[in-house]
């Protein structure tokens, strides 16, 4: 089916409808950039609230990613390697935030971390409050984006043949040694891609953050507030800025993941 000289009608028809979808995505992206113009970017970075919000968003997402990384990588490894009762349940629970509506996630988190929530009351004496605070932003980002890190890392570990670890064990490695010296180095790209994906999802989160911690304002909240208060052209600078950052993350992500995909793809049979 490779390199047929004439395009078959079926392929042609598929290509045409497919192009409609591609255009549907492309047009708004281009239009937004054109509308904003080249000067807008510098202008956006010169606005104090945008700069502060950018820093807040990026660092909160980094903290969220770091916290999930510590627990999520061992979890991903267990899910890729072990069978245990209730494994399906754990997998389901970890994936749940993907379909969990984000405003509802904010509400759910509020029942735990709010002023009247279990953890909210428990941690308040320690000076840790979650409503309208960086801690709240971090918790909201963690909740909605942790599946991306865990799933990507799990897939990366699953691609490492477990017999590598068996060989490492016979060569004297403990289970931890085999993980650190053999499995993690092979799954590294995937784990990093998962972390990057999670960070990318974190910086763009709106619904859950807006409910749990509307203030201090992350960039998504800032875009929303400016749009509501001053209209489209006021919202454009921070919006374009965050899109550009997301785009850079995305390009990095594909650079990490594409070589792996190629490696597992089927070679042309001879």
């Amino acid at each position, binding site marked *: 089916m490779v390199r047929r000289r004439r395009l078959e009608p079926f392929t042609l028809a598929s290509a045409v409808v497919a192009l409609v979808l591609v255009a549907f995505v492309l047009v708004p992206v281009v239009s937004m950039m054109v509308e904003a113009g080249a000067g807008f970017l510098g202008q956006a970075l010169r606005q104090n609230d945008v700069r502060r919000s950018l820093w807040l968003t990026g660092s909160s997402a980094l903290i969220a990613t770091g916290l999930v990384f510590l627990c999520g990588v061992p979890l991903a490894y267990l899910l890729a390697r072990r069978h245990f009762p209730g494994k399906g349940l754990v997998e389901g629970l970890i994936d749940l935030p993907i379909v969990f509506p984000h405003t509802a996630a904010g509400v759910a988190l509020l029942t735990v971390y709010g002023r009247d929530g279990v953890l909210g009351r428990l941690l308040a004496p320690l000076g840790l409050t979650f409503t309208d605070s960086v801690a709240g932003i971090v918790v909201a980002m963690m909740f909605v984006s942790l599946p991306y890190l865990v799933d990507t890392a799990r897939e990366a570990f699953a691609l490492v043949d477990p017999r590598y670890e*068996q060989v490492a*064990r*016979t060569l*004297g490695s403990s289970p931890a*040694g085999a993980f650190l010296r053999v499995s993690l180095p*092979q799954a590294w790209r995937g784990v990093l891609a998962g972390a990057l994906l999670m960070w990318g999802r974190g910086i763009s989160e709106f619904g859950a953050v807006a409910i749990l911690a509307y203030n201090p304002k992350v960039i998504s909240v800032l875009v929303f507030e400016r749009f509501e208060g001053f209209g489209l052209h006021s919202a454009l600078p921070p919006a374009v800025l965050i899109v550009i950052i997301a785009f850079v993350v995305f390009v990095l992500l594909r650079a990490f993941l594409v070589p792996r995909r190629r490696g597992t793809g089927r070679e042309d049979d001879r």
Partner: protein
Amino acid sequence: MIGLSGLCVRGGRFVVGPVDLQLAAGDYCGLVGPSGAGKTLLLQAVAGVRSPMAGQVLIDGQDLTNTPPEKRGVGLVFQDGLLFPHLSVAGNIGYGLRRRDAASLDGLVRDLGVEDLMKRSPGSLSGGERQRVALARALAPGPRVLLLDEPLSAVDGEAREELRDMLQRATRERGVTVLHVTHDVAEVFSLADTCAVLVDGGLRQVGPPSDVLRRPVDEDVARLFGARNVLRATRQPDGDGRTVLLAGGSPLRVVQRVDAAEVLLVVRPEDVTLALPAGVASVRAVAGAGGVGVADGAMGGASEPNILVGRVERVVSHGGHSLVRVMVPPAIDVSVSSREVASLSLEPGTDVELRFGAQMVWVLPAQG
């Protein structure tokens, strides 16, 4: 030294065992069986990467059943090498060494011909090179036991023979006890001192390969080792117990005394001589194994030749030799050189005579 006693291993719904097996220090054991027999499960239990359901694994007399693999002193090599892709060849070979003992490694590296590969990355190696590096990696920490899972299967042609020779030399020189899993019977003959046959999760027979070839314990083992003719026969009612009747009524002399009413006869296709009947030059069957004529002479008349008359049913060429199916009845496959098939003009319908000594017939109890 490896000792397995009552070892049972489970993989999914499949259970292997109980297996009892004793291998002397320095023994090279070929564990052979059809695919799905449970060979790899057994190997994993010995390596310690899979816990047995029951039974014990002993190495050099120590019970290691609950010892983790890193403390067993075993080396493990898989079919596809499984070199760590993020390490160089040198990194792979040195993986199991706490401090690089360069001197001891030098000998190993030379023996396996990997000196010039040390700085290469695993991805750039050929199949044979990969397996040699995997072997060096497994032998580097000086294991007492080497476990091989189809180590030659991924390599073809001359690279395979080279690898086989290096494997043999490197393991013999170091006196390491080897358990080599394979589905290829020929590998066992070229490498192993002892052959263990695993079929459907059960250990059927253990012994020198030539013993298993000549004296299989059951039909499965006989067929696995290429004895194509497994014939039903009954004891001749009033004989000396050394004559049986084939399904078609033809009498056959055998060496073993037959007491049961029904038996199975195993006759290897290369042990039968095929000739044109009466007056036409007889030719000796060749190919596969065993030339009967000379062996008869060597055995000093111990053989009483059986002669059967039949008609060729079909001729299948396999290159230099052909398999000729002769309907006696029953149907008997005979291995004949393709040149003789041509010179005798053998084709379906040709009448022929089959000859084979009584000692070429191996008698098995009939199965229920």
